């Protein structure tokens, strides 16, 4: 017989136990989001392939062919795609996570479950997209007959780092969005700009060469460390890993994730009233 005491200001203790109890809900919400995405579409899952491919083509043409930026000795498409992979994951995860609470407002105002399930499950959907894009990367590697370096074993670590970055920022935005709907406009804007100030279409070493004075500012962006890390893993030691940037990225991710959870938990009790 499970007993439960609800008291003003003392609901912490059951929360983490409840998260485990409601673990299946993670799966169900992610499953629902995946199903809903492609309902009534003709092309269906192929969109997950077509979108990154199109983006790859555009970026390669703009930065590689038109801009003629240096590629550090690897085929430009590979360079772009290995940067796109974490970026796409981050941007979709961030957008989905930020909107997750508001788009599930009917659940939040009518049913009890630990609210952390909602943003967490929204990130899982982006993970699926990421895996599909990773498959495309493998095909690209085959196409260019490029053997990935041994650093690839560290790839999972960088995936976790990307996950942490998107989850941390996503939690902040999700919690803030409940009360201040401005973020609905701010997030897409930030993501758009972010794609250009992160080394998606170009190499970080460019910044190191031409704008060495501002490299610290540039590295404040946690995705710089993540994307560089991805490139280092996939494309090999030619892509020097700028350690301070990575350290900054890890630092940011830790701070963002823990503070994100703290802020989320703090405002969670008013969600149902405000949403």
């Amino acid at each position, binding site marked *: 017989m499970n007993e439960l005491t609800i008291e003003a200001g003392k609901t912490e203790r059951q929360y983490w136990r409840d998260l485990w109890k409601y673990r299946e809900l993670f799966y169900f919400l992610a499953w629902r989001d995946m199903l809903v995405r492609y309902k009534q579409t003709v092309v269906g899952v192929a969109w997950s392939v077509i979108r990154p491919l199109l983006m790859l083509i555009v970026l390669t043409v703009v930065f590689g062919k038109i801009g003629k930026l240096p590629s550090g000795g690897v085929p430009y498409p590979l360079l772009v795609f290995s940067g796109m992979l974490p970026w796409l994951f981050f941007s979709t995860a961030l957008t989905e996570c930020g909107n997750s609470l508001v788009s599930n407002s009917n659940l939040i105002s009518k049913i009890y479950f630990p609210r952390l399930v909602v943003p967490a499950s929204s990130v899982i959907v982006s993970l699926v997209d990421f895996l599909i894009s990773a498959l495309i990367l493998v095909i690209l590697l085959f196409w260019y007959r490029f053997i990935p370096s041994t650093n690839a074993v560290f790839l999972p670590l960088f995936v976790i780092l990307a996950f942490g970055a998107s989850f941390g920022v996503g939690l902040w935005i999700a919690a803030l969005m409940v009360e201040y709907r401005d973020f609905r406009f701010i997030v897409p804007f930030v993501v758009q700009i972010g794609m250009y100030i992160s080394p998606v279409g170009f190499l970080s070493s460019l910044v190191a060469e031409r704008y060495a004075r501002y490299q610290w500012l540039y590295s404040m962006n946690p995705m710089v460390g993540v994307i560089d890390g991805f490139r280092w893993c996939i494309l090999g030691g030619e892509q020097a890993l700028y350690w301070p940037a990575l350290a900054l990225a890890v630092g940011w991710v830790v701070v963002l994730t823990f503070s994100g959870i703290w802020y989320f938990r703090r405002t969670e009790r008013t969600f*149902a009233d405000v949403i």
Partner: protein
Amino acid sequence: MSQPVITVENLSKRYLIGHQRARSDGFRHVIEAALRAPFKWFRSRHEEKQRQKEEFWALQNVSFEVCEGEVVGLIGRNGAGKSTLLKVLSRITEPTTGKIHLRGRVASLLEVGTGFHQELTGRENIFLNGAILGMSREEIKRKFDEIVAFSEIEKFLDTPVKHYSSGMYVRLAFSVAAHLDPEILIVDEVLAVGDVTFQNKCLGKMEEARARSRTVLFVSHNLAAIESFCSRGIVMQQGQVVFNGPCKDAIQFYLQGLRDNQTESHSDVIDLGAAAGRPPKYRPQLKKLELFDGNHQPLGGNLPAGGGLKALIHIELETPSANVDAELAFFSLSGQRLCTAHSAYEPNSTHERLEGRQVFVCQIPSLPLVPGEYKIRVGLDIALREVDCVEDATRLTVIQSDFYGTGVIPTQGSFLLQNHWTLNCGQEAAVL
């Protein structure tokens, strides 16, 4: 009495409601002010916003206990705090002060079809909704066929829910929730939708829950359902519990609070000519009602249970008519018709042409109603078509009496039956 499964102590819930500013700034002034002293302007706006928030206590010091197996009905006007109380009990929102202690798994049904996604099929939504309500995946798989059978939508299981009619939608949604089987079930007004068959099914399911000693907390405006289903009633008003006791008494308390300012006539002579309970389309042909008890004495407002009643209905016909009949009907306070006395039932009734003033005399040898308050309705029919009526013409209070001669009469239910009992000692049931 077993240990309470729900204990609520001094529960209060406060909301802050904002108010629109009375005066609107001209846009030009706003820009001017902002440019002249930007920080001061921002801060003053923020402070004004805070000041304009008013405190609203949706719940105030609510305390009660519910024991295992009890079915408690929660009634009150709109805005009394019933839904807020359920939300706090379901942990959707936190209390401002107070404490709640729950023993057992709680499942809440605050809205039918929560979590349903329009694009998904019925099958997919069963899993989704079940998971959201707290069922594990195996549990849903196990009960899947039962759920589908209860909802009667087998044929449309694989169609997206957005194509369902509202009835199907509600049936499916309730069906999933009905198979939750928690120890404590909290239900809010979900019976308001759906047709009669469906409502009966829902009540049947809740009856099953009651039979299995599940505790149910039930909010509804359907007083008949509350009366038939709940053992205890809690009445709420403006965030406070104003009554907590047996269900029937709770309903009476609630209805008394709702009564119009119309003077409640408990007298024996009632003027029907200008009565408020007459539908506007009818012309007043019913003029007066007189009530007498079994001893032909004017009824002082109280009738002993099972006592005789005589009613005189004075009418004045506008045009001479044949086949004129009068009706005297008894209703429960919640509006359910209990029994009807109609002159057409009388074997010796007259069918000849009548005109002008007439008096119908209705004799009821024994009115077998259980002690309580009842409404009396008077009607006038010509050729079995109603031409005049007065709803709630007067109230009748039936009081305790020694109907059976044993000093005991029921308080639950509506009627007193004539029933005789014997015991066949120690024998197998033989055909008597």
